[in-house]
């Protein structure tokens, strides 16, 4: 039960961090920080794809409600949840993942975490801006937004992981 509570806490904390703080930040250069992919990334290895997609849809819906984006976050998060097992399988160890471990930088190593999370976050961010802007003539603008926002969100996710979530684990 402890594990379930931990993930519920993460869900609430990350959703409201995104909805109330990172949505309101205005850094400039069109950068939009997104922290919600971290929750999808940190769900346990043995959880099936369909529950993950359900959770992703729910989380995206809540963030959409708070930011008037009409299904944009839900779509991007569901895509990330769908591709998560594919990327995990590609970068996984030969004998499969240890069910006692969690997909965190602490358990699996920073290198593994940054590769897998980087790919998933890049796909999520690219899809988000592709649907949001929806003009294929402005492909480079989409790419620029993806690189800037994705890069900063990645650093932010690493920071949040090392400061907030590791402390949870020690308890």
């Amino acid at each position, binding site marked *: 039960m402890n594990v379930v509570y931990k993930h519920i806490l993460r869900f609430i904390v990350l959703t409201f961090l995104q909805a109330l703080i990172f949505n309101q930040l205005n850094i400039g250069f069109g950068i939009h920080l997104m922290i919600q992919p971290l929750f999808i990334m940190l769900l346990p290895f043995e959880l099936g794809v369909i529950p993950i997609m359900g959770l992703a849809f729910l989380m995206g819906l809540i963030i959409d409600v708070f*930011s008037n984006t009409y299904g944009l976050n839900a779509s991007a998060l569901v895509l990330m949840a769908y591709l998560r097992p594919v990327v995990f399988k590609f970068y996984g160890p030969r004998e499969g993942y240890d069910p006692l471990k969690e997909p965190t930088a602490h358990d699996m190593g920073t290198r593994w975490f940054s590769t897998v999370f980087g790919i998933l976050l890049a796909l999520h961010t690219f899809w988000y801006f592709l649907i949001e802007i929806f003009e294929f003539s402005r492909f480079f603008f989409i790419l620029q937004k993806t690189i800037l926002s994705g890069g900063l969100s990645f650093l932010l996710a690493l920071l949040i992981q090392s400061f907030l979530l590791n402390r949870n684990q020690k308890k």
Partner: protein
Amino acid sequence: MRNLIAFLQRFRIFLVFALLQILAISWNVSYLNFPRSQYLTTTNDISIQVLEWEHDLTKHFNLSKNNTQLQWENIYWRKRQPKFMYQISRGKYKIEDTVFEQQYTYIPAEVINSSVTRRNNYFTINVGKLQGIKKGMGVFCHEGVVGVIHYASDHYSLVKTVLTKDINIDVSIQMKKSDLPGLLKWDGRNPRYGMITGINNDLRIKKWSKVVTRGGSGIFPKGLPVGKVSYTEPIEGQALWKVEILFSADYRSLQRVYIIKNLHLEEQEALEAQIPADEE
């Protein structure tokens, strides 16, 4: 039947994925057509409560700047009031004005939640249907145009700002001096700059000339400031200018807005409803 179940079993992950994606994207594409989907925006009861708590904390961030702006606006109007002016011709004649009649009235509101970095940016304000807000009313701040009401719930409403994709439908603009009409657009890059298209190449546009509202559809009065021309360039292969404007309002730190109520709008609409429909 068994084959069908086997098929569903085999592709169930993809089917769930496709279902959720279709739900999300169809909502994103067609939210204008389904009024009920407006419930899932910041104007619903739960999210507005949370955002109000947040607003109570963050509203002080731009307070001194906003107060200074309001003070300047007060001075502006105070200077124009007859009772504060020196009267040159005393008691010679009395003016009973029947030439002018009030056409627009204004409702003050506060911005609860806003965004400027997305492709389509909406502001949530703290007045709603109970204060007489309806869909399609114009919104402005003292520096310039903000947008139109997109959806109104009982106590709150959603403003579609000029920082959206298809704002040219709602806000019609023109050059102040030459009365040239144009189409206002926003390309999603910078919340300070917008674009105007549809102005012919053979007409000259001066830099820093003012752009104001046209006031044709009765949403905005004529002559509300929108911005100033900051850059012009001929579009290659077309007889049109590409005009970039600097918005006169800074939407990033906006707090107080006014909603325009046109007292003559019903009359205008009743009149326009008498235009016979095209019969073909």
